């Protein structure tokens, strides 16, 4: 069974002492090409998924569509069809393409282009090393180990992007390659998951698809354990999909009320 821990702090290093296969990676040494599809997952479905994940970076649906359009153009330009041995363009390449793109001033497309350029610029300036790599981490090897990713020391938005991309990769990979099984094959543990599953975003015009992926992953032996602080801010998709709910104590009455409501 593969164990993946997405830790907020540096308090999940103890598995190194317990298991030889445990690997702890700080976020700045982690590498992920957001534009490369996971093994066995089609390029088209990954393009949709990565546009969603970048879209979670406070990007409106129309700008996500522009992202998807330019991403597909970029893949065609680089001759990338999704095979693992091919060279895949990176977020930095996409950023350059967005910058060169010209639309009539004051048009909707120009506004979306500017919005997309700002988001990509923000991602690359905060975590350029993580995303400016061609290949990224080998997901098959990652799932052969007990993998702990430490996310302390970066801004919440970048944490969220890294987490959601990795979670999507694992879930889509398991769905694409796995048989339907009641036995646990992969367990993803997310500490401080309130940033990843936000209720506010679920109520917006472009809700995240992570909740939908969680529903699908269950049938393929992929379980998720999420620790959250403010349960009233956590998405309904998460609370309704978790069969087991444990409350460890609340200091806010609104959280206590919400917890009692969801376990009722």
């Amino acid at each position, binding site marked *: *069974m593969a*164990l993946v*821990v997405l830790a907020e*702090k540096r*308090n*999940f290093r*103890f*598995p190194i002492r*317990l*298991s030889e296969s*445990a690997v702890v990676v700080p976020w700045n040494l982690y590498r992920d090409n957001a534009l490369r599809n996971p093994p066995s997952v089609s390029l088209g479905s990954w393009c949709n998924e990565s546009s969603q994940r970048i879209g979670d970076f406070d990007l409106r649906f129309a700008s996500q569509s522009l992202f998807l359009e330019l991403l597909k153009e970029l893949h065609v330009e680089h001759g990338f069809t999704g095979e693992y041995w091919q060279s895949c363009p990176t977020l930095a390449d996409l950023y350059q393409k967005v910058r060169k793109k010209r639309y009539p001033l004051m048009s909707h497309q120009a506004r979306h282009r500017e919005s997309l350029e700002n988001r990509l610029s923000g991602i690359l300036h905060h975590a350029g090393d993580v995303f400016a790599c061609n290949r990224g981490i080998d997901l098959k090897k990652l799932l052969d180990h*007990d993998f702990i990713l430490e996310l302390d020391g970066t801004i919440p938005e970048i944490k969220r992007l890294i987490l959601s991309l990795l979670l999507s990769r694992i879930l889509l990979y398991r769905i694409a390659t796995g048989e339907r099984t*009641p*036995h*646990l094959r992969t*367990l993803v*543990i997310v*500490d401080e998951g309130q940033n990843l599953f936000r209720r506010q975003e679920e109520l917006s015009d472009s809700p995240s698809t992570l909740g939908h992926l*969680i529903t699908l992953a*269950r049938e393929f*032996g*992929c*379980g*998720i*354990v*999420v*620790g*959250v*602080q403010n*349960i009233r801010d*956590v998405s309904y998709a*998460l*609370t309704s*999909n*978790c*069969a*087991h*709910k*444990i*409350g*460890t*104590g*609340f*200091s*806010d009455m609104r*959280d*206590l009320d919400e*917890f*009692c409501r969801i*376990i009722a």
Partner: protein
Amino acid sequence: MKSSGRSHQKPSQPPQNPEALIRDILIRAKQTGDDRKPNFASLLQIAVNDPEDTEIITLLEEKLQESEMENLLAPDAFRATAPTQFDDVDGDIVLGMTSNNTVYGINRDALCRHMLTAGSSGSGKTSLLKILVAQLINRSS
């Protein structure tokens, strides 16, 4: 121990130390194959199986009434949802104790259906996750 106020059959011998009595009951539970820590309900079942031992039944009835009174005076939001039967808390991964002081466990395959732990800062969420990780690693290695 509080008096229940109910009339019980007086034991022929002077009452033993309650802790010693509970220990005896636990030993009996172990002998009958139930090696987990039993709750009041299963203790009562053991006592019912041995109706001659009126002292145990009296003691358990008093303890149950005391527990009911405690619940009435200080209702806990989680008490109603905490498991009371050991069949419900069976599992190969032990996560800790509930507010009813019963051991709470979960089966590994049940984690496929996802788990959510919620609580304020410092309430033990991360400790719970650590216990889970340590047990999963120990079992797989």
